[in-house]
């Protein structure tokens, strides 16, 4: 608790949306009549907006403190305490969580408002306007608990809470079997990650207890980081392993689950079954970032363990490339964006693993802006196309929905890394971190990053062109009714478009600060975050840095140009390519058949073995029929034989035998 200040303001931030969610929940389950829409909207959006305002006030309190003592703490009560274990329900606000809560409540509020327009259009059988906002508020609460939590356990509370809400919202339209399937899948895959998270908590807690500082508080852990780094334990098969490595990798398994990294990524594309605002809020702007946030929050662990850091960097890099290649062949507008999200999250881990924590958080923020914009834009397209998501049935929309087109284009350029837009700066910082790090194979990682930038520009260009240019491939009926959606849907898009365009300047790399604007400390985000996460200071020449930036731009430019060539200039090229490399195309289009492979090799065998071997053979067969019934029958048989000789009724025999037995026991004891 060194240098921390108290602020009871913090508990309000998650409490406000929680109250709204509770209200909706109670109304829905006990009153059974939806409240008036105006009221639902006012309460839900109002709660998140109020939470945003409180967050801003708290931020002001925070920046008034000297830079090295910027921590606000709010301890509510001891949540779980037994034996040596104790965890407070406590919140902390430091620069890192400040950035996160602003993204969560800010982007969150915009998406709440957008949802008002989007869900209004919901004509389904299993609709539920208030139910939707109940879940959305609950999600916001859980996400805020996750980022504000002062210890691993409160973080885990939020961690599983967002998982629950994700499950509820993916399967929101539960009348459709597939949606429900996707929701369960998301929850279960996340739980696999949570298994790692729990193991990480156990390891750290007992190591801390061993050091005489039993605690899972982040600041206590950070204070003991040096002592923790000296501990190791013996593992079967692996031999002596450093404790920090083991704990950091276990926790990273959790991060892989939540942030959809290899090999636990496959739930995220399926999560697109949920309503589009959900995809924007949960599966692009906030929840999926939780893993990146966790690695940044525990940066001291990853700093202490080069092995774990390398694992993070490589998993991130490989995921970035892997998911980008899949995105190239998808036709569903939301699927493309989903794989793109997986890929961009990979970028963030690539940065975090190469000690570029500030770059990771920077990209997390800009990505939240432009990916939310893209998803909401896609939602607007889907609305205008009357719930059509397949880009095969789109095209030429730019003139029909000009305002949606304009904001979507900004999003595409931002993610593709168009110079000056937000994605350009944050991606630059990531590539720089990879280039200057000491992780084994860091040059390869840099190469992967540059290559992925090109692929990103390519698939985004492809998506954009197939949606907005060329001939419209929709049916006549649909074509007659295509128009921009309502203002409620559009104006959150304008705000996000603005942020996507200029949001990068908050973390403007020093290179551009010096060269163009003559600003001394241009990367204010990094300066703000550094006291918490530390930072790698890249001491490289400006000329090298310019070269790196040029390489990234060149790669993205090539990707963009190729997409223009393939899908705009010569639309028959993709077809010819598909014919000449049909195997490769099908492999990518089929997402490398990972889902099918897991299903066939893991899920189905597990169910079959459980059913045939464990249940039918072992449980019902061996234990029950052979052992239990068998014994019972033979005893009965024997007893019948005895009783026949004794020629008595059952009751008398029972009593007789009982007396006999007791006598035998007593006699034995007193002999």
């Amino acid at each position, binding site marked *: 608790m060194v240098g921390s200040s108290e602020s009871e303001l913090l508990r309000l931030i998650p409490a406000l949306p929680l109250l709204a969610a509770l209200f909706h*929940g109670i109304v*829905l*389950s*006990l009153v*059974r009549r939806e409240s008036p829409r105006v009221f639902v909207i006012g309460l839900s959006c109002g709660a998140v907006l109020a939470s945003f305002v409180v967050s801003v006030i708290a931020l002001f309190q925070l920046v008034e403190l000297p830079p090295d003592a910027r921590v606000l703490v709010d301890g509510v*009560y*001891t*949540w*779980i*305490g*037994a*034996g040596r*274990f104790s965890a407070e329900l406590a919140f902390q606000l430091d620069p890192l969580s400040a950035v996160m809560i602003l993204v969560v409540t800010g982007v969150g509020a915009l998406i709440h408002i957008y949802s008002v327009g989007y869900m209004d259009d919901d004509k389904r*059988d*299993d609709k539920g306007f208030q139910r939707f906002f109940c879940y959305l508020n609950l999600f916001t609460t859980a996400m805020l608990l996750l980022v504000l939590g002062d210890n691993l*356990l409160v973080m*885990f*509370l939020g961690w*599983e*809470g967002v998982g*629950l809400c994700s*499950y509820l919202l993916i*399967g929101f339209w*539960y*009348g*459709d*079997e597939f*949606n*429900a*399937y996707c*929701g*369960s899948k998301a*929850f*279960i895959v996340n*739980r*696999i990650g*949570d*298994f790692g998270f*729990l*193991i990480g*908590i*156990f390891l750290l*807690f*007992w190591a801390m*207890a061993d050091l005489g500082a039993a605690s899972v508080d982040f600041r206590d852990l950070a204070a003991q980081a040096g002592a923790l780094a000296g501990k190791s334990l013996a593992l079967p098969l692996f031999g002596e392993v450093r404790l920090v490595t083991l704990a950091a990798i276990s926790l990273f398994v959790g991060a892989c689950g939540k942030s959809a990294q290899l090999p636990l990524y496959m739930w995220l594309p399926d999560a697109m079954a949920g309503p589009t605002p959900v995809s924007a809020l949960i599966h692009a702007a906030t929840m999926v970032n939780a893993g990146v946030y966790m690695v940044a929050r525990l940066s001291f662990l990853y700093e202490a363990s080069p092995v774990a850091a390398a694992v993070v960097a490589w998993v991130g890099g490989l995921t970035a490339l892997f998911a980008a290649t899949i995105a190239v062949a998808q036709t569903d507008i939301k699927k493309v964006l989903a794989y793109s999200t997986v890929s961009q999250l990979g970028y963030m881990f690539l940065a975090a693993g190469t000690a570029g924590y500030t770059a990771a958080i920077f990209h997390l923020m800009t990505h939240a802006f432009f990916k939310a914009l893209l998803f909401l834009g896609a939602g607007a397209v889907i609305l205008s196309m009357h719930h059509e998501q397949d880009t095969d049935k789109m095209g030429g929309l730019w003139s029909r929905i000009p305002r949606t087109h304009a904001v979507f284009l900004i999003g595409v350029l931002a993610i593709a890394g168009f110079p000056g837009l937000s994605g350009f700066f944050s991606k630059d910082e990531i590539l720089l971190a990879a280039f200057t790090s000491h992780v084994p194979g860091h040059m390869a990682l840099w190469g992967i990053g540059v290559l992925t930038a090109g692929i990103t520009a390519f698939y985004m260009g492809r998506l954009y062109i197939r949606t907005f240019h060329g001939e419209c491939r929709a049916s006549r009926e649909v074509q007659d009714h295509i128009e921009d959606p309502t203002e409620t849907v559009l104006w959150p898009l304008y705000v996000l478009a603005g942020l996507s365009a200029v949001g990068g300047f908050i973390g403007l790399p020093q290179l551009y600060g010096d060269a163009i604007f003559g600003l001394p400390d241009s990367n204010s985000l990094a300066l703000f975050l550094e006291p918490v996460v530390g930072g790698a200071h890249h001491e490289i020449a400006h000329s090298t840095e310019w070269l790196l930036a040029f390489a990234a731009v060149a790669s993205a430019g090539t990707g963009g140009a190729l997409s223009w060539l393939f899908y705009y200039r010569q639309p028959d090229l993709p077809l010819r390519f598909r014919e000449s490399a049909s195997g490769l195309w099908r492999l990518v289009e089929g997402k490398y058949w990972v889902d099918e492979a897991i299903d066939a090799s893991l899920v189905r065998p597990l*169910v079959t073995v*459980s*059913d045939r071997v*464990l*249940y039918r053979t072992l*449980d019902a067969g061996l*234990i*029950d029929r052979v*052992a*239990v019934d068998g014994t*019972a029958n033979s005893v009965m048989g024997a007893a019948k034989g005895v009783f026949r000789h004794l020629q008595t009724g059952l009751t008398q025999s029972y009593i007789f035998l009982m007396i006999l*037995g007791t006598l035998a*026991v007593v006699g034995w*004891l*007193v002999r």
Partner: protein
Amino acid sequence: MHLLDEHLLTIVTFLPFATALLLLVPNRRLPASAWRSIALTSTLLTFGLSLRLWTNFEATRTGFQFVERVPWLPEYGVHYFVGIDGISLLLVLMTTFLMPLALLGAWTDITKSVRSFFFHMLALETGMLGAFVSLNLFQFYVFWEVMLIPMYFIIGVWGGPRRIYAAIKFFLFTMFGSLLMLVALLVVYYLHYEQFGVLNLDYVQAAGASGASLLDTAIPRGGEAVWWKTQTWLFAAFALAFAIKVPMVPFHTWLPDAHVEAPTAGSVVLAGVLLKMGTYGFVRFALPLFPDAAVTAAPVIFSLALIGIIYGSLVAMVQSDIKKLVAYSSVAHLGFVMLGMFAFNAEGLEGSVLQMVNHGLSTGALFLLVGMLYERRHTREIADFGGVAKPMPVYAALFGIVMMSSIGLPGLNGFVGEFLILVGAFAADPRFAVPATLGVVLAAAYMLWMYRRVFFGPVENPENRGLIDLNLREKAVMVALLVPMVWIGVYPKPFLGRLHASVTELVHRVEQGGPAATAEGDPAPLAATLVAASGEHP
């Protein structure tokens, strides 16, 4: 008030049975609802009184509180001796809380011999409470056996199609274990006599009473002692009796049958309370009496607990009957309870006892929910359902919350218990704790899969279209159950706080290893003493 406070524990224990006797007064004119109301009032009153135990309990005091001791057969060391510590307090409260909800939740379930059914339910409650508060081993054994009889009838008379088979199986399994325990108990009785020269079955020493208690008895660790007098064998006999009741794999097969056949209220009590008899028996008797043997046996118990968690989950996953699925999930959950208990540290033990309560709440609630659906559709086959959330949204929501409690979502009760258990077990032996943590994943898998097939998707079966959502009574029962689930999940301190002292004492005793055998003079032969005690002169 004075009289009430002095005999509070006795009144709480016997109030249900007294009401049960009242039900026996022949009166043919009263309608079924009258019997129901009498029984409900009685259980509610019992719960109300037991709240006084909760508020008057001094959390920081070690030892037993609300103690009452009356000579019964003092020559044989048999007393009516009751008292509770933090561990039994929680279980008593859980029992008195679940009983009225079980009755109310299955209000319209029983139509045949209503009066008789409630007689058995009330007798059962006294039996269970009696076992939790007993501090005399003889008395404990009596209650332990007595509660078998009403349960046997509840399954056998009001159960499903295979009720006779299930009831007999339940009875024989438990009986088999009980007899072994009885033999072991007699050996302990004898050992105590050997060491102290008096006949005694008091578990602890009562205030003001002279002599020693069973806990002071040194039980040989092997080596010199005759084999059947050693901790190993005595522990094994007690453990087997309790393990059958828990149930631990491979003694669990009576459970799915008993659960599936039992009427809803019976299942709730069976899962909620009766299974805890096994785990409570371990904590109260097997561990403190035979600490060395318990420590030695820990790897065996750990293995069985781990097998229970994984095996129970996997078998639950492939069940086609919802009730059977919940029954197998109990096997997994009780595996967690055993895992935490045999970690022998405060974290694991507190989690373990708390998880007993949690399991009672969530599984009790699940059985009630399954019963509510069964009353409407007369089937529990998962395949018969689909899309139930559409006609029954409130039911679906409540089921969802209870399911989340059962799979240990943070913020609800299950997490607090499971987490502490795993923390404790991890310190004891990570080789068991790490795979046991996988149970958390499996629990999500089997529960969510079932939930999806029952509640989501289109309503394909026309019979499900007209399903009526929960009525006020059913909602009230479920909301009442949600209160402690959320309370324990969000603020478990009042519960854990009442456990600290008792658990610390237990951990200490296990670490110390119990009293060491001291050389004693030869007492008079037991047979002579027994005869003398019975008042006959040779």
